[in-house]
């Protein structure tokens, strides 16, 4: 093997130089905090206790295993992530397929589908909250109140708030995934669809045998982004349930531990329980994307 030439060496140096701002930023804002959380999760750090921080090993993690609250939060998180992801994917795929062929007014429908994602979620979640849980004096409050009463009656107190979280997440996420998949469909050479049209008359078979496999990388990307946002979701749940957490997810549980109980150690451990799951999902994603990443000669 010969040494790379001087021009190539210069190129590599330039590459690292250009990468450095991004890496520096990610290290400061992500790597350090995650490292801190890792360490803290092995200690009993708390601003409320006087003594020095003590190393407790996996005590924090162990405690969760026997904690019914934790399992409840974990179950809710998984259900929340699964339900929203499946719904987003189904709706998003539907949107993308609807928009895949030209028709009159497509531009408008496309814009409509694009809106929920483009509408700033940081504030639209507030709008949702007030829409679904209106102040009692507004005209539609009785109707919403009735709905809340019915849902809470069926699933327990706080259910309506949680349903509104799910609805909001799906509403916004299906828009994002729809647009992403539309871009994916556009990236597929039309000949492949035409080929499929000759192969099979059944629209379902074509969808099943051609569209889905070709869209697989984009579906995987959509699922991953959807899962990460759902797993780490805190803001939406917190906001839409106005901090009255009846159905805690991992995120709100950890937040609660920090803010209300000052238990940094357990909270860190709790936050980190999510990471391995997401890593597994990510590895699957990379596998699915590999053919896409390979450089065509």
């Amino acid at each position, binding site marked *: *093997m*010969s040494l790379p*030439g*001087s*021009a*190539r060496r210069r190129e590599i140096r330039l590459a690292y130089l250009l990468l450095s701002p991004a890496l520096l930023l990610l290290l400061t804002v992500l790597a350090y905090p995650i490292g801190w959380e890792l360490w803290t999760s092995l200690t009993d750090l708390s601003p409320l206790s006087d003594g020095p921080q003590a190393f407790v090993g996996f005590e924090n993690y162990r405690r969760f295993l026997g904690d019914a609250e934790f399992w409840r939060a974990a179950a809710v998180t998984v259900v929340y992530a699964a339900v929203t992801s499946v719904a987003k994917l189904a709706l998003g795929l539907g949107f993308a397929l609807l928009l895949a062929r030209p028709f009159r007014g497509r531009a408008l429908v496309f814009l409509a589908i694009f809106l929920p994602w483009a509408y700033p979620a940081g504030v639209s979640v507030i709008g949702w909250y007030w829409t679904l849980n209106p102040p009692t004096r507004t005209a539609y409050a009785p109707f919403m109140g009735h709905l809340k009463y019915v849902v809470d009656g069926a699933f327990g107190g706080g259910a309506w708030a949680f349903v509104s979280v799910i609805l909001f997440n799906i509403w916004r996420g299906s828009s994002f995934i729809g647009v992403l998949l539309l871009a994916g469909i556009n990236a597929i050479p039309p000949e492949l669809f035409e080929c499929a049209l000759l192969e099979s008359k059944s629209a379902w078979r074509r969808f099943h045998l051609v569209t889905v496999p070709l869209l697989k990388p984009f579906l995987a990307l959509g699922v991953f982004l959807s899962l990460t946002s759902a797993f780490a979701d805190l803001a939406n749940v917190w906001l839409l349930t106005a901090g009255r957490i009846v159905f805690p997810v991992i995120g709100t549980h950890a937040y609660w531990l920090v803010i209300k109980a000052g238990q940094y150690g357990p909270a860190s451990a709790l936050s980190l329980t999510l990471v391995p799951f997401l890593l597994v999902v990510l590895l699957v994603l990379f596998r699915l994307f590999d053919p896409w990443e390979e450089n065509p000669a």
Partner: protein
Amino acid sequence: MAQVMMKDLNKKYDEVHAVKDVNLHIRDKEFVVLVGPSGCGKSTTLRMVAGLEEITAGEITIGDRIVNDLPPKDRDIAMVFQNYALYPHMTVYDNMAFGLKMRKFPKPEIAKRVGDAAEILGIQELLKRKPRQLSGGQRQRVAVGRAIVRHPQVFLFDEPLSNLDAKLRVQMRVELKRLHDRLETTAIYVTHDQVEAMTLGDRVVVMKDGWIQQVGEPLELYGKPANRFVAGFIGSPSMNFVEVTATETNGALWADTPGLRVKVPPALAGRLGAYKGQRVTLGIRPEDLRIASGNDAADYSFDTVVEVVEPLGSEILLDLKAGPNVIVARVDPTVRAKLHDKLRLGLHPERVHFFDNKTELAI
């Protein structure tokens, strides 16, 4: 206007030795074609001349400057790529003007040069369009236009016609040739198509596995291939190769194999004498075979059976079998041959080739 010299040029990647000891002297105003199968190192050689690939060892001179360490922009060259490499966000005019703008030419001069080039190439109407609005042939013209506006010392062409359909390719080939006659600029042209190489090149360089196989004028390569590879690569359909034994009968040398026995022409008998009793490869071009008539000496003809008939209009290709040996012959369209016909073929004694089985060099 300049000559290009390559001295002991080598290119090594991590695992691959792509170009090996290439020595080539391209004269001023000459049109030289590098030809060979894919992976033969021809494009790498061209890209080293362009400055797009680093030179592992050796030296390249353009004009009287050694350009090894010069960046591409300072080599005073222009290059046309297979995929045209037009700037998609610029109009045709801006595409062609880009190099001149980079070199800070005054505006009127740029307009004049682009106008001239557009006229030569017949693309005046397209100047305001964007590349995506053009057909393949038009894009190719723009790419050529972009190369000629700067009046560079050397043109480099990297398979410029490969993305065009067959008809357009022939047409553009003729135009490129005319353009070179008109501009008289040194040109290096890379292709895998031997017909392009033969029709365009003043000289043709045949490469394989990083080595130069032979350098010569087109007809020289055709008539006197230096080795078996060149012999098979140049010419279409390619040369027939039959492994034979050089035997001596009654003081004369014969090329002998089951189903085929022809006399070695006197001109070659001397050199082939050294191979007496050994296996060598006999090479005959399909166009050097004909249906034997009474005039053909029996010594230079052999019996065959027709296996496939391919009438092409201006000629007929016959796939024949002489014993176990498959032979292709290119014959007159008036020949009426049917499947399984028995034909006796004659050959031009002065147009047979023999190759050493080990070195593959011409004998």
